[in-house]
């Protein structure tokens, strides 16, 4: 789901093409907007999913994010990239949703893909290095999501964006509208907390 930085930072030509798509979408061209949605749907869905640990919620929020972005497109002045702008909408929507959902803790996790079983790091983590040698990937997935859900929204967001999706610090700072130092310190504390919650699995 994460995308390498090379792909994320479009060159000038790609940025120009994206701007053209945005301008067409502003004029009401839904084909152009469809293309923009297809470009960023996986990243936006992924961020929301990792924040909520619930597929249905992530689906609704991701769709609402793109609908709201379309409705607000006229207010997009191009000060940041379209991608950062949509991300900001998604993040705000998700954080608001999580604040309202505080009392309802229901996880609806996606299945692990086939590659997970063949990931050497994960196999090693599960089979050899942890005290819980009997832990399967599914159990580990559940524990990991439970630990993530114990973090505050801001801490969960930095971990999701940086450690899961590979977004660089500078871009996270733009999305969260804070400085890079804040991102780094939040990341540090979030990792420390996660380490405490998952001590049995990462010793």
């Amino acid at each position: 789901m994460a995308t390498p930085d090379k792909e994320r930072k479009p060159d000038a030509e790609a940025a120009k093409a994206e701007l053209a798509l945005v301008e067409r979408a502003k004029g009401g061209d839904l084909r152009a907007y469809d293309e923009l949605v297809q470009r960023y749907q996986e990243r936006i869905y992924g961020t929301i999913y990792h924040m909520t640990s619930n597929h249905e919620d992530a689906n609704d929020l991701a769709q609402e994010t793109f609908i709201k972005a379309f409705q607000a497109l006229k207010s997009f002045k191009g000060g940041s990239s379209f991608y950062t702008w949509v991300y900001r909408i998604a993040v705000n929507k998700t954080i608001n949703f999580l604040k309202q959902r505080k009392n309802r803790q229901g996880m609806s996790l996606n299945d692990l893909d086939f590659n997970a079983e063949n990931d050497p790091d994960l196999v090693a983590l599960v089979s050899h290095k942890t005290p819980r040698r009997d832990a399967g990937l599914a159990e580990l997935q559940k524990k990991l999501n439970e630990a993530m859900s114990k973090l505050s929204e801001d801490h969960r967001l930095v971990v999701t964006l940086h450690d899961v999706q590979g977004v660089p610090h500078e871009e996270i700072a733009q999305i969260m509208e804070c400085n890079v130092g804040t991102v780094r310190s939040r990341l540090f504390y979030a990792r420390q907390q996660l380490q405490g919650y998952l001590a049995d699995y990462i010793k």
Partner: protein
Amino acid sequence: MEDQTENFEQLKKLLALKKHEQPPPGYFNKFSGNVISRIHAERAVEHDPMRQLESEAPWLMRFWRALETKPIFGAAFGTAICAVVLGGILMAEKPAKPTARMALPEQSAPETGIAVVSGNQAGSIGQGVLPASANEPGAINLFNMAQSNSQTAPVSFQPRP
């Protein structure tokens, strides 16, 4: 510190597990289509005249719903409308009373029904009623002449031999 870094490395490896959590197969093939369909649906709702009315005049819609849900309101409203219409018809059928301006003149010429006023009054009334040119001496004379020669000969429509 080294331990901590090492542990973070382990944690990062564990977090990599989340990258493998994927939505059901084919999910992203339909996703953008669903978004576009919802945008279409919202546009249709925006152009619905009832919805527009609801956003522009919510009081009207509340009133309409009250009429729909409580028949007594409907009956009362219908009765009120009928009363207004009947009242209007009755008022229209009554003969019109003379207005205050028509009652003002001192005398009236019985033959023509044109009010005859004195010179001073003619001047004062003329300022308000008659055009400016009518206040000039020539115009007053013409006006008085019309009063004095109020008997006019009927026009004959008989064809000339």
